[in-house]
């Protein structure tokens, strides 16, 4: 499979042209922080007993979460699926709370209750982290509905995968978004595989998946996700449209994941996808390398600076693991907290009647 190569140079798009050097470096750092965080997470996952469950790595796709989330204003919200580490860091969550969540510690963003697939930070307009494929698409619709209801100028950015497009609730959501003029932007991160199934084996496609939006008069755009500038330029248009016209849109970014579907995925290398394909993306389409070269070319970055940033990110990740390691586990009592708001707050309602039934 081939990633559509870009047509225009999006460095000149207003949203990118006016970036100050430190802002550009900040974007590079954000991508590096995601990668280093996940590399550390993977290493620790492989040390038995530290983490459990699934771990879906975002490595290779960093430009998308970073580019999209770098455009978020006060009333722009984000929701995604289980491959949610990148988006979490991109909206500004700390490595500590994220790593601690992977370790299942009370200091984790979800107090160790959500795990790798369920990171949340409502204070940063980040609504997770959802494990049921496609399940986030009606919730994203609801975030947009809430924004419109409250009269706020914002957008709901709802990420989904190339496999998730085959969950019916996505189409129900598109029709309603279009019918109600809701400012929801569905961002398809097309990494070409859903687990071990190639896009061709799961979806009938003409130009691309986003094109399906036409069935509901929802505008769409396809772009090259490996180019941070392109991601930002294309997304900015959609956000402006959402803000100014309260209209939905579908964006599809070509991208690639370097690791397996999850850490448990044994077959991805030479199994359902050829090793050369993986190599090609790593060497020719890596969003971090591409952006690094660009910035060096633009003269706003040196190799030394890059290495420093990279090292700093590595150190931050290591420190977060240390933090996680030293944090306490949830107690048995914690198990029954955060089930019911009213019980947690011990309101009148929370004190009335039996809520739990195992004893």
């Amino acid at each position, binding site marked *: 499979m081939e990633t559509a190569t870009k047509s225009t140079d999006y460095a000149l798009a207003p949203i990118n042209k006016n970036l100050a050097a430190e802002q550009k470096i900040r974007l590079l750092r954000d991508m590096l922080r995601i990668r280093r965080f996940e590399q550390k997470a993977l290493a620790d996952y492989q040390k038995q007993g530290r983490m459990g469950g699934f771990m879906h790595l975002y490595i290779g796709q960093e430009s998308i979460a970073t580019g999209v989330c770098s455009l978020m204003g006060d009333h722009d*919200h984000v*929701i995604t699926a289980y491959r949610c580490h990148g988006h979490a860091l991109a909206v500004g969550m700390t490595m500590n709370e994220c790593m601690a969540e992977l370790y299942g510690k009370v200091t*984790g*963003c*979800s*107090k*160790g*209750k*959500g795990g790798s697939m*369920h990171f*949340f*930070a*409502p*204070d940063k307009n980040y*609504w*997770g*982290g*959802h*494990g*049921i494929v496609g*399940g986030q*698409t*009606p*919730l*994203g*619709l*609801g*975030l*947009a*509905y*809430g*924004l419109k*209801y*409250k009269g706020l100028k914002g957008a*709901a950015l709802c990420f989904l995968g190339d496999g998730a497009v085959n969950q*019916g*609730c996505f189409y*129900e*959501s598109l*029709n*309603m978004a279009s*019918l109600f003029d809701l400012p929801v932007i569905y961002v398809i991160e097309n990494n070409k595989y859903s687990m071990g199934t190639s896009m061709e084996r799961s979806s009938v496609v003409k130009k691309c998946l986003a094109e399906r939006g036409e069935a509901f008069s929802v505008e769409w755009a396809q772009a090259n996700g490996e180019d941070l500038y392109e991601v930002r330029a294309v997304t900015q248009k959609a956000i402006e449209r959402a803000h100014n016209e309260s209209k939905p849109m579908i964006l599809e970014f070509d991208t690639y994941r370097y690791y397996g579907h999850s850490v448990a995925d044994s077959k991805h290398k030479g199994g359902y996808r050829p090793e050369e394909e993986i190599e090609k993306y790593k060497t020719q389409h890596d969003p971090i390398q591409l952006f690094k070269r660009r910035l060096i070319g633009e003269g706003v970055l040196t190799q030394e600076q890059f290495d420093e940033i990279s090292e700093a990110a590595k150190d931050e990740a290591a420190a977060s693991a240390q933090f996680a390691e030293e944090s306490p586990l949830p107690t048995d009592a914690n198990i029954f*907290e*955060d*089930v*019911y*708001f*009213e019980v*947690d707050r011990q309101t*009148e*309602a929370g004190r*009335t*009647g*039996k*809520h*739990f*039934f195992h004893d």
Partner: protein
Amino acid sequence: MALIEYRDALNQAFAEEIERDPNVVLIGEEVAQYDGAYKVTKGLWKKYGDKRIVDTPISEAAFIGMGIGASMLGLRPVMELMFWSFATVAYDQIVNNAAQIRYMSGGLINCPIVIRGPANGGTSVGATHSHCPENWFAAVPGLKVVNAATPYDAKGLMKSAIRDNDPVLFMESTLLYGEKGEVPEEEYVIPLGKADVKRVGTDISIIGHGRPILAALKAAELLEAEHDIHAEVIDLRSIRPLDEEAIFASVRKTHRAIYVEENKPFCGIGAQVSSMIMEKCFDDLDAPVLRVTSLDAPAIYSPKVETRQLPSAHDIIKKVLSIC
């Protein structure tokens, strides 16, 4: 007190809460311009307009999910399912989103949504439209399940449900919508988790929820008149949270209990309640807790026959006499 229909009691609850809180919005199929398939929302769209009363396409998964997402931002959506049976196409949204989002976010997010509609058989609409799903949902920690048998309870419980900050599934009955009952002029609320002793008695506790409570009251009358058996009738009203104290107190007094519900028997609410009674009141029991439920087959269409599938006063009396 005014004598009004169950549907109007609910309608009053909606109107009062809409006026009280700008975040309350009613959403569902035919709830606005059509006044509701069962006229429960009659007149509200005319009065409150497009923003507060919203018609949707036939897309339960999307609009229930939309309500959940909106509730995360602070709205208080009251979502109508034309029948609770249609929750089958929005099951994931209810069980995995509404029920779990608070827990999985470590308490950062809450979901103050109400999902409501009729959940009953007895109207010859066939097996797919006659589910009583209270046990499917009450089984899921994170959800609350309410079931009102009278206009008074319906209004008071609905107001509490709308103000509650957790997801509340409110189950009504198309066969109750036209039933009249006394409802006070002045405002009132009924807390979730409080059972109502609808008739005081000493010989047996008839416990249940939903429309069969009316059959239980009728049975209690006949038992007293014809058998000198004084039955206490307890309406749970709220299934989760559950008022176990009210149940145990009654059983400790009467030493006998029967659970009555329209649900199917296997893993019905009566199974849960009877196992709780056995565990907590074992030595108080002079007889096994028996259960009266719908007959254990899909809802049959044939009108005259279907009524026999549902629990009747006669069925209740028979069971009572078998242990009294």
